[in-house]
């Protein structure tokens, strides 16, 4: 069969589709992997010059506020907005029964394999999806009316003048109670509060057989209560109409998807929507996701209000309003695990009841990175009158929570060192590591044992050999009990994601990366610039990117897919390689040598065989740009190349999408005050095999930041609702307790570079790992300290004292 010649589109697609295999560098690293590279956004952010969406002021701009339901479950029977409309300074009022908004739902992103499917958006589990309706199913839901006024204060005052007659309905706050037969039904007409979810049952092998093979059976329960993030920058949007054109400033992870959703929701052609996405104060996947209830809701409302008012409209949520969401790992779980005396886990059976949304079932990591043959995982989700749940920095929370607790309980029951139990069960999809070894060799990866390397580094750093002990056996001179724990997983692998970018060499030899990309604070742009610098042979300082403008046509993979570098690293690498090829083509005319006889280093083009035959890059491209008034001189086409990359699908198996060969290990050392129940974290060691670090400081930054986020989630973060009204009581930064820098010690963050990653140059992701791994680790650590289990998160002094028998309730 003769190979069919591919057309330009097919060529682009073929070049850009990820193929499993080691991506080995073809260039010498000059900036890649090096410390001390000036951070792209460092000056702007540290100096306060960085411009955020909230900072934008437009002439004649109005401010909008939306009514929040004071009740956890209620319907508006009568809405009187006359006084609000008459309030001085109010410009527009949008009622739920206005035809512009009436019946509009949080939707618009159509189901299908290539777009955000409804079931994968946070609002999807809401039985009431109306953007601005007359019914609230949680306290704080946007409902009834939005007003637009000369100032935020006037808008807020006007809302106070809205008169509403409510019909209050019974509420449900606990997911297990919601599934009891006598529970009131939350959705009119439904026969139960259970949410239909196709992931309800996951099985592999036969657990009964696995339990028969076991020499020990371990059973336990665990709970995780609601937490969330409330980012530094409040969710906000600005909309401005000019004729049929809409200009928007969005604080969002996915501006292109936002454009698509708005276009579908409001029938605005995508090419008429001009979008700016400036620096952003946070992201974390949940609230600033355009398909989620908050962001989608305020986007649509701002656009409609701006149209109605004929002026630019800014809609910013206040701090309290940002708290209406929760993590998708609110779960009550029961585990039964079978194991052999040598630590081999033969079967895992788990059943969890989730509230409002199940991030992940809890079993995926056991499939992905163990050799356990028999698994059965039930995940049931129930509606409760609480805000929509969603990913919270990472959807893998339930998976690592379950893995951490299962492995620790097994090691303890068998009296084994938990690091040995990890190595005993390491594998992939039920296979032992020899399967992975073969896979690595077949695809050109080094055959290294990543988990063993991570564990060795971590044990040494924390002093595991000398300090680890049996549970409840080491009291320190200060009277506290000493505890240690360990957990592990594979690398953060969510390798989906598609991006495009162009690399253009300007007329003066400086280089632009042309693409929009949302800021989530993880310093991705520095890494892209490092890659382009080394691939092109240009100094890092000569590279620039302006990621804030979606109107340039190219957009890098939005950073919410856990995959900045995995996809985008390939995009910029390929674009740089193509641009270099174009540059050498151009130079070939000027050097009168074939392009492949030439190379570029430090912005100098030279002949490889005769390096003294050289020409500064800027001389080569002098005329290579669109020039006006090119009278009397010949110009040449610009050196501009673009590339596209898609990085496999999320949720695919090893052979079809995401090879997870890098491992990570997290170690912790704590002290427990047995009189007060207080837990003091004294040392954290994170070891991540990142394959290849592009920006070492960025890698470590993610590990440090994740440590603090994880410890707060483990020990102090908890959303608290009033049991009788369903009102969220601690929706502020004082009563909702994020960890602060004084609360925890410095973490020791070690990264290994085995080249086993699936990303460019053998790299893999680091952005979500630590914050997701750390919370569960505190359960085993507290157990190791006090010899009693407190698998109920957050682990508060109250629960520790109860486990110690110091208090009754």
């Amino acid at each position, binding site marked *: 069969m003769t190979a069919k010649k591919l057309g330009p589109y097919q060529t682009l697609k073929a070049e850009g589709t990820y193929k499993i295999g080691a991506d080995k560098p073809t260039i010498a690293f000059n900036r890649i992997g090096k410390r001390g590279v000036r951070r792209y956004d460092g000056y702007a952010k540290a100096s306060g010059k960085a411009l955020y969406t909230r900072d934008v002021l437009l002439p004649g701009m109005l401010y909008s506020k939306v009514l929040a339901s*004071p009740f956890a479950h209620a319907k508006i029977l009568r809405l009187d907005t006359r006084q609000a409309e008459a309030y001085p300074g109010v410009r527009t009022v949008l009622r739920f029964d206005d035809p512009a908004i009436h019946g509009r739902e949080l939707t618009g992103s159509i189901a299908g394999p290539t777009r955000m499917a409804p079931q994968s958006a946070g609002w999807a589990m809401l039985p009431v999806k109306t953007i601005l309706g007359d019914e609230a199913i949680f306290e704080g839901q946007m409902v009834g009316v939005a007003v637009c006024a000369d100032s935020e204060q006037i808008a807020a005052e006007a809302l106070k003048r809205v008169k509403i007659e409510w019909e209050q309905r019974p509420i449900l706050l606990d997911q297990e109670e919601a599934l009891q037969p006598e529970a009131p039904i939350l959705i009119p007409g439904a026969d139960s509060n259970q949410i239909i979810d196709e992931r309800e049952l996951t099985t592999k092998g036969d657990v009964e057989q696995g339990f028969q093979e076991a020499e020990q059976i371990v059973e336990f329960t665990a709970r995780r209560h609601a937490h969330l993030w409330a980012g530094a920058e409040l969710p906000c949007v600005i909309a401005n109409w000019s004729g049929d054109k809409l200009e928007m400033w969005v604080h969002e992870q996915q501006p292109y998807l936002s454009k698509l959703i708005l276009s579908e929701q409001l029938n605005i052609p995508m090419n008429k929507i001009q979008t700016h996405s400036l620096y952003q104060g946070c992201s974390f996947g949940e609230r600033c996701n355009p398909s989620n209830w908050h962001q989608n809701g305020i986007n649509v409302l701002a656009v409609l209000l701006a149209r109605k008012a004929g002026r630019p409209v800014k809609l910013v949520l206040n701090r309290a309003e940002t708290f209406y969401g929760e993590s998708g790992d609110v779960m009550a779980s029961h585990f039964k695990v079978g194991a052999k005396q040598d630590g081999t886990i033969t079967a895992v059976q788990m059943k969890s009841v989730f509230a409002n949304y199940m991030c992940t079932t809890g079993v995926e990591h056991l499939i992905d990175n163990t050799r356990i043959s028999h698994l059965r995982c039930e995940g049931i989700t129930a509606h409760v009158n609480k805000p929509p749940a969603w990913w919270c920095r990472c959807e893998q929370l339930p998976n690592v929570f379950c893995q951490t607790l299962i492995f620790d309980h097994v090691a303890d029951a068998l009296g084994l060192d938990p690091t040995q139990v990890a190595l005993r069960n390491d594998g992939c999809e039920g296979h032992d590591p020899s399967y992975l070894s073969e896979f690595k060799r077949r695809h050109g990866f080094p055959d290294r044992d990543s988990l063993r390397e991570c564990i060795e580094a971590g044990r040494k750093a924390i002093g595991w050999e000398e300090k680890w002990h049996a549970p409840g056996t080491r009291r320190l001179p200060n009277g506290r009990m000493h505890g240690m724990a360990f957990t592990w997983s594979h690398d953060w692998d969510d390798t989906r994601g598609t991006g495009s970018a162009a690399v253009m060499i300007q007329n003066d030899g400086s280089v632009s990366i042309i693409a929009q990309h949302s800021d989530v604070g993880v310093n991705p742009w520095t890494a892209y610039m490092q890659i382009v610098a080394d691939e092109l042979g240009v100094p890092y300082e000569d590279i620039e990117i302006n990621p804030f403008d979606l109107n340039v046509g190219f957009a890098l993979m939005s950073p919410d897919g856990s995959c900045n570098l995995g996809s985008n690293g390939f995009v910029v690498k390929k674009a740089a390689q193509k641009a270099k090829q174009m540059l050498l083509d151009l130079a070939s005319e000027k050097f009168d040598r074939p392009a492949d006889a030439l190379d570029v280093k430090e912005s100098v083009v030279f002949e490889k065989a005769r390096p003294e035959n050289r020409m500064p890059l800027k001389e080569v491209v002098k005329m290579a740009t669109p020039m006006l008034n090119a009278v009397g001189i010949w110009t040449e086409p610009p050196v501009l190349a673009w590339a596209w990359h898609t990085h496999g699908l999320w949720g695919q198996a090893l052979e079809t999408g995401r090879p997870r060969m890098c491992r990570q290990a997290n170690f912790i050392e704590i002290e427990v*005050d047995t009189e*007060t*129940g207080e837990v003091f974290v004294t040392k954290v060691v994170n070891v991540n095999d990142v394959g290849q670090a592009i920006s070492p400081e960025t890698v470590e930054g993610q590990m440090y930041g994740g440590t603090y986020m994880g410890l707060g989630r483990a020990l102090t973060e908890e959303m*608290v609702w009033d049991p*009788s009204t369903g009102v969220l009581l601690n929706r502020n930064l004082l009563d909702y307790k994020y960890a602060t*820098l*004084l*609360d925890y010690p410095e973490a020791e963050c070690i990264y290994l570079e085995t080249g086993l990653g699936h990303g460019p140059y053998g790299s893999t992701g680091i952005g979500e790992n630590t914050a997701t791994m750390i919370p569960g680790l505190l359960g085993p650590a507290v157990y190791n300290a006090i010899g009693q289990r407190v698998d109920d998160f957050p682990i508060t002094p109250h629960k520790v004292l109860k486990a110690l028998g110091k*208090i009754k309730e």
Partner: protein
Amino acid sequence: MRTFAHFNARTVDEVVSILRRYGERAHVIAGGTDLLGKMKDELLPKYPEALVNIKSIPGLEYIREDHGTLQIGALTRLEDIAADPLVRGKYNALAEATRRAASPHLREMGTLGGNICQDIRCWYYRHPDNRFPCLRKGGGRCYAMNGENRYHSIFGANVEQGCYAVHPSDTAPALIALNAKVKTSRRTLAVEDLFEVRVGKTTVLDSDEIVTAFEVPTPAKATKSSFVKFALRKTIDFPIVNCAAMIASEGGRVTAARVCLNAVYVKPYRATKAEEFMAGQPINEANAEAAGDAVVSDAKPLQHNGYMVQIAKVMVKRAILACRSEAPPAQT
């Protein structure tokens, strides 16, 4: 925030006269770290019509020793007290209480007078827009009593009102343990007698009366004082329980003890049972423990705050132990 009249007072008399004019409709502002948050959240049924700024009054910010007493002006900032060598030398309970209060930023703003006069902490009371019109706002009931009361009173409610919200000040128990007096624009009274639980009020101050200074007697030789605090986070958090103690000893035995808890009751809670127990006893682990037990013997915890009883007991014990002559610094 809504609009309000604002006065920069130059003298205490001027404050009093403005307050007389406005009655309950005016509020005094110094550091503003509590008041401004309350106004932004529109906690109270009635929004203040006027604020009287007292920071503009000269001479109310000082720390000095005078005739066997420590004199502190009401406007002295917490951070300045915490860092003052004089306070750190002889008045350890106060130094430590001011050091542990709030966050660095708030300590640079908040004053000692304000810390004593701050409003109660209760997430029902503090919920914005008067969402829970509770007893302390002149409403019908206490929402915490049968609600989420993990941070509420363990020694019962105020008798008349049935309110379980706690007084959150870190400095109040220290000043009470140190037997301090508070001077107002009208009178001088023991700090201990300043607190009162009424609708819209936490002190006995009249609506036209302000705190101007504190007077702390210099502790006799062989007297030590301490302050311990239990909170979930080491920055910013209000106490779940705090405790201050001042103990005088002679010949290895306690001759006088003053112990005061806070955040466990509707006002600072003088731990008289611990004081009585310690009288004549040596300060040691067993006695301190027994003193703590004695204090909580009449605790009446609610559904979710039983753990606070244990913590209060331990705080009493640690505050007492920290008053040993060669005691290491308290851990919590």
